[in-house]
């Protein structure tokens, strides 16, 4: 079966399964390929050569590497933009479209930018459009529209796919399953080390799958089969194929992406056998469809059974080009000629075979230009010319007929991962390549990334690196294998395959459409350092991140500035090695939310839940539309009757031990040494800089036991701070964060005693026996409870803390017990109103990141004679400095004025002196009450100050002593 006009018969196409046809669409056209095809191979097989349009000039582009290393084949696949068509396998129904075109893919109006290319020099956007604000205003949207490649799927409002993550662990991780990596894995697994071998390909082998190592072309596949079998036989090697390692992070932390999963692999030692990346020759039209790397053509032929063209010219500077020529001939593709940059072509098995096949070898020649066919959709020929010197060509052009030009002029190590780990690279004057110089600990390089180019050398290098990695991970077996005698790196890479053309279109960077002269001109503009040139010209900043342009850019800068390549390096390679989907990085959303024991009861009662730190709390009970009625109603129930609020989220700390009181003395501003057992006392915490950070209540249940509450969002920090301080003080005290262990409610209102008494046998709740700020351990509805007569709301009330697993039962019991009184749950919003009527502050709402105890007007909470408390020394200093603001209670001078909103400003003239921190129209008092920072000179009751409210209007606040409601606090002490 031969789906496609350019499909070659078996045995070509090792990675496709001809028994299964798969149909998909490209630009609306139905295309048929085989299972195993990539989008690009299927398109080429069907004669669809142009796959994408270039970034700036919208030039037609096609396969360059066939290895996902370039951006010439970026396509839109359904909702996925910027998809590598030469990597992405086809699936039935896949909807593939071209990217970055205006009008239609075939008739892209954007291609006309090329006509004005002369007017768009390097960095043109810096050089113009700014003369007047009008000019930039007009041009910016146009330039902006031109930007970008693929399209995000904006119609969707959901995650497209299920992505997840998994941790992996290995003694040795081998990255790259080419010959060196395969051998490295086997060598590393010689003992009992657990080895993971990661490879991008559909099957292991790397270049063994497609390259030609000997004249008859069998050596690669035989070696591959042998190694593959050996690896499969090893129980301590796990193969992750079709997987790409995108980075190498601290302490051998490797992200590996396979299908919809991100693996995070921790290895004790790593072998990077990541191979090398073929490098282009720079000549005119070197970017057009039909010009590709020799290895790309070999991949098309051998892996996918696709004929890359009908008549080829091979530009070579190494033997691999000859191997490729033999592959072409085997596939029935005519080879017009070999142009070899080298003056002398070595005589060996491969070159001799090419000669024997009757192919003309034109030594000492480069390609000056590829001839573009109609619409530049395909090349129709090549102009070869004699190499005169470095980058210069002599007269004597020869036109060579072809629709395919293969480039085999050299490589650059795929050292990205090594770069991520901080490996230094040094330029090797003999091989004309950068090679890893100093490797960080636990990291080993093998194969062509490490300059071992000859197959035997790569195998030997892999054996050595695998053995070393295993030893590094603590697994020694046998003697250390020797390094390869001759790595075979010399003679594979040409030092200057760059032949600029007068008429341009000689691309150094395909991603960014940068021509030779763009780099030269950028250097002339003064950006004569590789990093600066990168930023100015954008060379290497495109989707392939300089995989094919970085080395050329360094060569060009070096020559232009007269700097030696030894003293230069390619620009820093940053992760990821290849683009990673947001979905892969995000994975499953792990966003813990804490729910109290009564959570479902609240939902059943129609509560609107709101986040409070990590927790969910009921804001109020009822529909959103009724909010403005519900909250005052909840307030009124508490004031007149009885209400129940879930306070489980309040922090709780058990502080126990002989030094418990001393510890609290140091942690809080007040004094606790003389606090009686069975009584509660306010706690206020400041940090060492004297800033108010938390508050709560300390209950003394035993001489050596305080139960301390903390704010919902503050308790974890408070707990951690307590442990930190005591790690230094070494007091004999134990602190336990028991927040989650206790569910809590506050039953509040004049009828709360009656309700509670009903379910609280054996405790005398009378005012005498259980006064305000009293506390006891008792049973409520049969549940062991810590009962405290405290509250935020200023009514008779009891806070009841019970084991969390019995919290729902407590709630049920109290709601049932209060039935006849009409008990009603109230939420955070009503509580905020109630507390404000009492003038209680909420730390972090009525205080901010700099509020001192003096500014908060809480001098009453500061013990003056203690030897020390955290923040005390700063508070002393602050006390000596004049206050700049003061927190006061206020009401409105004019009853008709609106209620200011929280954070409306307090002004003195035009100067900002403070802000409203809390304000509400009190349902109990039917007037506005609030707290605000005012200028200290306005801090006394009766003083008036300006508040700027919505619309810029100013209204007048009057400083008012609080509590606003029940100023004598009689109700809470009933």
């Amino acid at each position: 079966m031969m789906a496609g006009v350019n499909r070659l018969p078996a045995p070509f196409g090792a990675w496709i399964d001809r028994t299964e046809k798969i149909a998909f669409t490209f630009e609306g056209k139905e295309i048929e390929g085989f299972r195993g095809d990539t989008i690009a191979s299927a398109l080429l097989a069907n004669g669809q050569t142009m796959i994408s349009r270039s970034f700036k000039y919208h030039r037609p582009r096609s396969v360059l590497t066939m290895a996902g290393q370039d951006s010439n084949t970026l396509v839109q696949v359904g909702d996925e933009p910027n998809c590598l068509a030469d990597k992405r396998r086809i699936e039935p129904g896949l909807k593939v479209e071209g990217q970055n075109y205006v009008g239609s893919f075939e008739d892209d109006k954007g291609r006309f930018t090329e006509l004005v290319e002369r007017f768009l020099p390097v960095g043109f956007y810096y050089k113009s459009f700014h003369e007047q604000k009008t000019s930039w205003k007009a041009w910016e949207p146009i330039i902006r529209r031109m930007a970008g490649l693929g399209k995000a799927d904006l119609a969707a409002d959901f995650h497209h796919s299920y992505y997840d993550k998994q941790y992996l662990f290995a003694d040795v991780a081998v990255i790259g399953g080419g010959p060196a990596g395969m051998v490295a894995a086997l060598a590393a697994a010689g003992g009992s080390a657990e080895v993971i071998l990661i490879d991008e390909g559909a099957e292991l082998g790397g270049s063994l799958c497609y390259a030609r190592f000997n004249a008859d072309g069998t050596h690669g596949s035989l070696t591959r089969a042998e190694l593959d079998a050996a690896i499969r036989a090893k129980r301590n090697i796990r193969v992750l194929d079709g997987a790409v390692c995108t980075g190498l992070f601290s302490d051998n932390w490797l992200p590996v992406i396979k299908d919809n999963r991100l693996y995070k692999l921790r290895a004790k030692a790593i072998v990077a056998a990541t191979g090398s990346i073929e490098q282009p020759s720079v000549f005119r039209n070197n970017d057009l469809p039909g010009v590709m790397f020799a290895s790309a053509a070999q991949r098309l032929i051998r892996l996918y059974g696709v004929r890359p063209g009908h008549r080829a010219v091979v530009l070579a500077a190494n033997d691999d080009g000859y191997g490729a020529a033999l592959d072409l001939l085997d596939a029935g593709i005519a080879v017009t000629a070999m142009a070899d940059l080298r003056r002398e072509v070595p005589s060996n098995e491969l070159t001799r075979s090419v000669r024997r096949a009757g192919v003309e070898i034109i030594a000492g020649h480069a390609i000056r230009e590829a001839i573009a066919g109609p619409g530049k959709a395909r090349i129709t020929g090549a102009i070869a010319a004699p190499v005169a010197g470095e980058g210069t060509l002599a007269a004597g052009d020869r036109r060579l007929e072809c629709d395919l030009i293969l480039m085999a002029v050299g490589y650059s190590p795929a050292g990205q991962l090594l770069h991520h780990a901080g490996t230094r690279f040094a330029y090797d004057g003999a091989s004309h390549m950068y090679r890893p110089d100093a490797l960080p600990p636990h990291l080993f390089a093998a194969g062509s990334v490490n300059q071992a180019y000859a197959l035997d050398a790569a195998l030997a290098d892999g054996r050595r690196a695998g053995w070393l990695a295993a030893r590094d991970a603590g697994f020694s077996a046998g003697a250390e294998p020797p390094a390869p005698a001759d790595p075979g790196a010399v003679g594979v890479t040409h030092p200057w395959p760059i032949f600029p053309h007068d008429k341009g279109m000689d691309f150094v960077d395909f991603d960014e459409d940068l021509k030779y002269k763009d780099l030269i001109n950028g250097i002339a503009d003064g950006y004569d350092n590789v990093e600066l040139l990168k930023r100015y010209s954008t060379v290497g900043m495109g989707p392939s991140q300089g995989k094919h342009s970085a080395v050329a850019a360094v060569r060009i800068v070096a020559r232009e500035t007269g700097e030696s390549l030894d003293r230069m390096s390619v620009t820093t390679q940053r992760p990821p090695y290849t683009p990673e989907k947001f979905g892969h990085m995000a994975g499953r959303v792990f966003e813990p939310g804490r729910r109290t024991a009564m959570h479902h009861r609240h939902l059943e009662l129609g509560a609107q839940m709101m986040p409070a730190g990590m927790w969910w709390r009921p804001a109020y009970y009822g529909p959103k539309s009724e909010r403005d009625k519900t909250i005052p109603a909840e307030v009124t129930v508490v004031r007149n009757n009885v209400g129940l609020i879930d306070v489980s989220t309040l922090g709780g700390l058990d502080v126990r031990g002989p030094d418990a009181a001393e510890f609290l003395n140091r942690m809080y501003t007040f004094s606790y040494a003389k606090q009686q057992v069975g009584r509660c006392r306010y706690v206020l915490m400041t940090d060492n800089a004297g800033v108010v950070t938390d508050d709560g209540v300390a209950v003394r249940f035993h001489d050596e036991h305080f139960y301390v509450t903390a704010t919902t969002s503050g308790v974890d920090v408070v707990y951690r701070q307590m442990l930190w301080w005591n790690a230094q003080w070494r007091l004999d005290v134990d602190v336990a964060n028991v927040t989650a262990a206790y569910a809590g409610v506050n039953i509040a209102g004049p009828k709360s005693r009656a309700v509670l008494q009903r379910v609280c046998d054996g405790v005398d709740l009378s005012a005498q026996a259980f006064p305000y700020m009293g506390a006891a351990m008792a049973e409520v509805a049969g549940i062991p409870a810590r009962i405290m007569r405290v509250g935020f709301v200023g009514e008779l009330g009891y806070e009841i803390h019970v084991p969390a697993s019995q919290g729902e039962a407590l709630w049920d019991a109290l709601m049932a017990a209060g039935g006849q009184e009409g008990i009603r749950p109230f939420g955070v919003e009503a509580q905020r109103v109630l507390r404000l009527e009492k003038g209680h502050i909420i730390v972090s709402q009525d205080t901010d990141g700099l509020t001192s105890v003096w500014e908060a007007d809480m001098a009453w909470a500061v013990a003056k004679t203690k030897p020390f408390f955290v923040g005390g020394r700063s508070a002393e200093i602050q006390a000596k400095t004049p206050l700049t603001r003061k927190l006061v209670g206020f009401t409105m001078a004019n009853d008709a004025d609106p209620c200011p909103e929280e954070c409306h400003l307090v002004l003195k003239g035009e100067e900002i002196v403070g802000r409203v921190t809390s304000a509400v129209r009190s349902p109990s008092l039917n007037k506005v009450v609030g707290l605000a920072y005012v200028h200290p000179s306005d801090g006394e009751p009766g003083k008036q100050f300006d508040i700027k409210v919505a619309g810029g209007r100013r209204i007048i606040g009057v400083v008012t002593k609080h509590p606003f409601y029940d100023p004598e606090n009689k109700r809470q002490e009933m």
Partner: protein
Amino acid sequence: MVPALLPYKLLPYGFRRKYRPQRFIPKQKDLKSTYDVVIIGGGGHALACAYYLARDHGITDVCILEKGYLAGGNTARNTAIIRSNYLTPEGVRFYEQSLKLYRDLSQDFDFNILYSERGHFTLAHTDAAVRTSRWRAEVNKQLGVDSELIFPDEIHRLCPHLSMSDHVRYPILGALYHPPGSIARHDAVAWGYARGATALGAEVHQQTPVSGILIENGTVKGVETPRGRVYANKVMQAVAGSTSVVAKMAGFRLPIRTIPLQACVSVPLKPFLDQIIVSGSLHVYVSQSSRGELVMGGSTDPYGLYSTRSTLDFKEGLLGHMLELLPMLGEVKILRQWAGMADMTPDFSPVMGLTPVKNYYIDSGWGTWGFKATPVCGMTMAHTIATDTPHDLIKPFYLDRFVDYAQVGEKGAASVGH
């Protein structure tokens, strides 16, 4: 009007046969032994300072010493957001002046810095964040800065792609909307200043680290470099990421911790996101650059480090949260990640002006906000150096404000402030 609309400056490039370079960064000269002013650091702030020293104060015998390449530190690594919607009046006035200078820079430089007004949204996901947003909006408005607290309907109208679901951990309850919020091409800002300063006489010396600071009787005399000793009447350091290290050479300590700040960009997409979106609770910010890349970052790293290494966990956290805001981006790809080093102060305001060493000035403590302050820092530090008196705009940012308990509390607005 019409001619001004045409990019006529490009015409010569097309019509001339030969490219006529506009040299932006002069060839390096020999290092002299004495200068009027030495500026340690060759980033945006240093270059801006040199520019304003020359332009506004006639001080042109200025030497900029850069240990790496020009503007290759945090100037090259930031995400290029410009805004003035701060919380403190001191901060607002300062950054508003910066924004005003930014607006005219392209014109001043005759070089397009690609300044682009996008509108800046700081999302609020909690009641507390809504309060802080209102606080900022009110302070901004009082000082003449265009900011407003807006609510979900309006947010949805202006940023239609944001997920407004209220069934998520961090529902969007409101936003501080700051229409003047902008982006610009960060490198171009530095290059413009470099050209401006050098054209007026300043010298830029790249690959020239400062290895010591000469101080006699509490007065700075010059600096040591591998290329020799350089004397100067006045010395300024503007070396974000190395601030404490250089200050230590001058013999004093600072209220600064140096912490990496990471960022990443996506593979370019056709423009769809016109606004700058910031979410404090989700530790995310994002804008789309003129190249079509989504430029994204979050809060600083969890611990201090003098390194620009990248981490995987940064990306995992960032993109997880990004998809909560923009769930449709799951198939979009990250192209590149990197890091800078942020000098964090306790109150998130800078430390600028005079130092314990006479004639030695400091421009530091930029945290995550250095880029947006570039022009105003240059202007105010130039004034400070020229007159040996802190410019009014930077007086609140003096070093001793900490021991004086007079901090400028910008922290409340800044769990992630870009």
